[in-house]
């Protein structure tokens, strides 16, 4: 079994601050998708803690200089979680929060799926599943050739790793011992057509990655302390790429969306938005998220 991280090494104040940011991003996500009238709430909500940990703590970025060559790279390989990425970028200062309301509209910089050419802070275009890991391999190889200090992070969906090309990237990362590359698996066990374990089972998923010569960690993907610790540990692994298998809940934070494949890709109605916001605005702490 992979090592369980029980105690966070990060100060409680940092964790609390990030957990509050998670709540704000979830609110943005449901509002954006409601406003757009289409989009993917389930997989955006499941990855909220992971993306928050990256954008508000882990990644070395400069919102004033989105193309800073030494910035850490983040590839949202599960590109349908674009609303979450956009919310994080806006809250991090890459563009205004008002712009989030333009998601999926004509002329918007916020395309239905991420477009690196339109949106400041988006490192790579995504949407068709399966590309991010191999692209991350290329970025990590370039960092090595350039003697550049950046790290590369790739967020994978669980349904996404059913794609064979993911495993081409997995082999390449191990061959080149890319310890500057960290993948995170948003393992919410729900995909468009139903439960992942029914559509095309992944288990034993930890063993699979280990067999591909990756360093594997397994965490609760809604536990901020565990996420931060795992990201730290990944930085200190030498000679192996790391994957953090993060167990999550699809639609996390909105009770009627949780674990429902129907909420993979549909927008909330006015009434559903009201209910979702009521839940997200009143709490988070007691429903999870604290370490």
């Amino acid at each position: 079994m992979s090592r369980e991280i029980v105690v966070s090494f990060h100060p409680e104040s940092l964790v609390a601050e990030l957990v509050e940011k998670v709540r704000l991003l979830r609110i943005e996500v449901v509002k954006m998708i409601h406003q757009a009238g289409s989009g993917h709430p389930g997989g955006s909500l499941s990855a909220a803690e992971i993306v928050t940990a990256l954008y508000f703590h882990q990644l070395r970025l400069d919102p004033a200089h989105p193309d800073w060559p030494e910035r850490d790279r983040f590839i949202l390989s599960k590109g349908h979680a674009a609303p979450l990425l956009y919310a994080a970028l806006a809250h991090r200062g890459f563009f205004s929060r008002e712009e989030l309301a333009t998601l999926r509209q004509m002329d918007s910089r916020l395309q239905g799926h991420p477009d690196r050419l339109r949106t400041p802070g988006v490192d790579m275009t995504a949407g068709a599943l399966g590309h991010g890991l191999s692209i991350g391999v290329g970025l990590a190889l370039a960092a090595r050739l350039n003697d550049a200090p950046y790290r590369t992070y790739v967020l994978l969906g669980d349904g996404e790793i059913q794609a064979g090309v993911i495993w081409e990237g997995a082999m390449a990362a191990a061959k080149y011992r890319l310890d500057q590359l960290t993948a995170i698996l948003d393992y919410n066990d729900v995909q468009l057509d139903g439960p992942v374990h029914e559509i095309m089972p992944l288990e034993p998923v930890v063993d699979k990655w280990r067999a591909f010569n990756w360093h594997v960690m397994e965490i609760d993907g809604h536990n901020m302390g565990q996420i931060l610790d795992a990201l730290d540990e990944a930085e200190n692994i030498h000679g192996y790429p790391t994957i953090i298998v993060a167990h999550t809940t699809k639609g996390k934070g909105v009770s009627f969306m949780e674990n429902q494949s129907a909420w993979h890709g549909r927008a909330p109605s006015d009434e559903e938005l009201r209910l979702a916001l009521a839940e997200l605005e009143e709490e988070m702490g007691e429903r999870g998220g604290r370490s």
Partner: protein
Amino acid sequence: MTQRASMRVAYGKALAECGALNPELVVLDADVSASTQSHYFAARFPERFFNLGVAEAGMVDVAVGLALGGKVPFVNTFAFLLSLRAAEQVRTCVAYAQTNVKLAAGYGGLSDSYDGPTHHSICDLAVMRAMPHLAVVVVADAVEARQAVPAVAEYAGPVYLRLSRAEVPVIFDERHPFRIGEGVLLRQGSDLTLMGTGIMVARCLEAAEELAGQGIQARVVEIHTLKPLDRALILQCARETGGLVTAEEHSIIGGLGSAVAEVVGERLPLPLERVGLQDCFAETGGYNELLARYGLDVGHIVAAARRVMKRMP
């Protein structure tokens, strides 16, 4: 037309030379470096060479990442794999994302003749030409293959460069000014124009010679860049000669013939014949025998030219 030279060897050596001049150039291959000749680069610059194994789709995505990191990646494998197995990678991550990836497609057309239709590439140009932002270049001989490498490396944006396994007649000398996007006038003539790409350019020149013996003065133009297409030159030839024959080592659907037909069909309809595979797969066999059986011989170009002449007012 006696001297012949290997296009793939010329390409492989040029890639290594280009690598010596450009430290940002990196090369990827999918377990066929001994075939594509990327091994010349691999031997000189092992730290900049990445063999990804039999993983063409993943290889293209790795190249995308290298390009995002500022490198100039040349991705090498057989044309059919690059254009079809990795087509979605090319569409999404190279063309749509406009990453500076160079797709070097070896073994174009029927040039891997004995390996049969699984290894022939007869619809790659149709697929690649439909990709927005992607330049599509088909070289005609070893000299042009050598010249194309630095031109492709310096080109600002992604390029599909189609090569050949074959030893083909040398038609250019080193002074040939190869520029992406510019067609090349190879022989003057006023009765009609033969437009060739790839190995069919040499055959167009032979056909023009034969036609001259029959009293027909055929102009010969090389269209090495299918995209961006030299529309001005095509329309000029259409206006000045009144009839066109296209010749390509590809299906007549979607390649040079289609590209030229699109231009003249919209602007200047005229008699046009397309020489190429007639919407069929070939088979295993000797290269020249296959070219002859599947409609790509000099005689087929001559016959097409005569049909065009008959249709002209």
